[in-house]
């Protein structure tokens, strides 16, 4: 029972972090960034030397954890900010559909760049191996990693929420998400706010890639895809642009997946995702604006 709870929370953590990364950018730019998943993959591959071998040649991965984690977060943030400067800045006045397609294209560019350097074969890596040891909590045995994933997510969500609510930058970001033009007429610098949102979103992608890399022990250029799909759905269910909604829906989706995995009869389990998506459709039928609808999503820049 406790195991189910922890499974749900740790899977939900991944979805919540992913959904938050999408919602942050959507908030300020009305852009659904489909390249987010590829930023996740890129952040892990930044640890490796380019090679097509199955066994990864570790490069930056030998750093101690207190350097390794900031390194991956910085890679995610850096790539994300770079994609804003090089690509999305040029599409600020374009329609949301155009921006979405640009993000698809950017995602492909990143993926094929990785494919070129590393081939499509998943590589085994050992990222923070100390975390795969089991620990015992209230009689349940679980990998230390799962516990740390949950705790780290809670800490990150808490820190982010304080940041968004209490700092000047957070205030500007919330104002920009509601009405960017008005915010600019009050002197809020559009570039700064948008780059900040991309940096935060990219760092969250980095966090996901650490968790995924440590959980699976592999680096795979596709690794961002599955999380991203669920995270994207979570942002829609949560109410596009609503940060709280994205987090809530991320955890709900994680819980739904894990619960269905346990309660469904074994022969139906392979179709678990179909049931999850079915539930998603039901939610959207009853609340098309999402669980928490973002207020006054007026103009973009």
């Amino acid at each position, binding site marked *: 029972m406790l195991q189910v709870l922890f499974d749900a929370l740790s899977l939900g953590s991944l979805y919540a972090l992913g959904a938050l990364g999408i919602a942050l950018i959507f908030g300020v730019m009305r852009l659904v960034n489909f390249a987010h998943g590829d930023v996740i993959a890129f952040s892990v591959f930044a640890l490796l030397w380019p090679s097509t071998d199955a066994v990864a040649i570790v490069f930056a991965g030998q750093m101690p954890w207190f350097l390794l984690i900031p390194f991956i977060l910085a890679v995610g943030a850096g790539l994300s900010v770079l994609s804003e400067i090089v690509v999305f800045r040029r599409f600020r006045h374009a329609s949301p559909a155009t921006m979405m397609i640009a993000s698809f294209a950017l995602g492909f560019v990143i993926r094929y760049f990785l494919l070129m350097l590393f081939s499509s074969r998943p590589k085994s890596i050992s990222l923070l191996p100390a975390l795969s040891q089991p620990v015992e909590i209230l009689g349940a045995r679980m990998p230390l990693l799962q516990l740390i994933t949950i705790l780290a997510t809670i800490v990150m969500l808490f820190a982010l929420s304080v940041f968004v609510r209490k700092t000047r930058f957070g205030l500007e970001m919330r*104002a920009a998400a509601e009405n960017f033009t008005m915010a600019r007429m009050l*002197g809020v610098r559009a570039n700064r706010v948008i780059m900040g949102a991309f940096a935060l979103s990219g760092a969250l992608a980095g966090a996901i890639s650490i968790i995924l890399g440590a959980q699976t022990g592999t680096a795979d250029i596709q690794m961002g895809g599955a999380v991203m799909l669920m995270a994207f759905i979570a942002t829609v269910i949560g109410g596009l642009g609503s940060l709280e909604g994205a987090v809530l829906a991320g955890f709900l989706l994680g819980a739904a997946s894990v619960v269905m995995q346990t309660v469904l009869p074994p022969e139906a389990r392979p179709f678990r995702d179909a049931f999850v998506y079915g539930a998603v459709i039901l939610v959207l039928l009853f609340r098309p604006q999402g669980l928490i609808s973002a207020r006054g999503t007026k103009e973009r820049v």
Partner: protein
Amino acid sequence: MSLLAVSDVTIRYGRLTAVREVAFTLAEGEILFITGPNGAGKSSLMRAIAGVTPPAGGRIDFGGTEITGRAPEEIARMGLSMVPEGRDVFGSLSIEENLMLGTGMHSRERGWKARAASALEEVYDTFPILKERRHGQAGLLSGGQQQMLVIGRALMTNPRLIAIDEPSLGLAPNITDQVYERLIALRAHRKLTLLIVEQSSTRAVMVGGRMILMRGGQVLLDGDAGAMGQSEALQAAYFGYGEH
């Protein structure tokens, strides 16, 4: 020297020309009303001045510097504070957060925190209702309170010029009176330059100052509001020549 100079500004939306070669200047400390019927191009002109939609032709100078085509945040940082049509409060933010937003542009300056705090006190003195509800959501304020909030928010940027697009929009006449009362007191007290857009010229005639009458994207009259109030040209210009 004029604080704001608009020279032959033309604004187009696709094939529609909303404003055609409009020119006027506004001196420091002056109060200027821009009036005219629906679709005259008043709001379009305001958005061009604020940098939101750059004009198709002409130039705009503020404080002796050309601002045509500059970003809205840059223009705001030069001391031109725009209160757009429809007010645009940040409904999900608290009233105090709305007010504080405008002080960010000074956050690199020495002693800005103290100045922001005293500016906040000043706004609260002018509009006590805002102080009462300062931690409440701005979206829940009434129309008149929201109008006071956006004027207060514009003041917080410590501007040289405040431009307000239809402050009376959707307000009961007695609330509009209150808003104007405070605006005029503020102007006297802070030596503000005011640019106010209204559909009807009644308010301009009441308050006095200079008035420009626009219609069909062009300036028809420019002169002293009080004197114009007496003339029949005003009525004729407002409703159009030979339409009745």
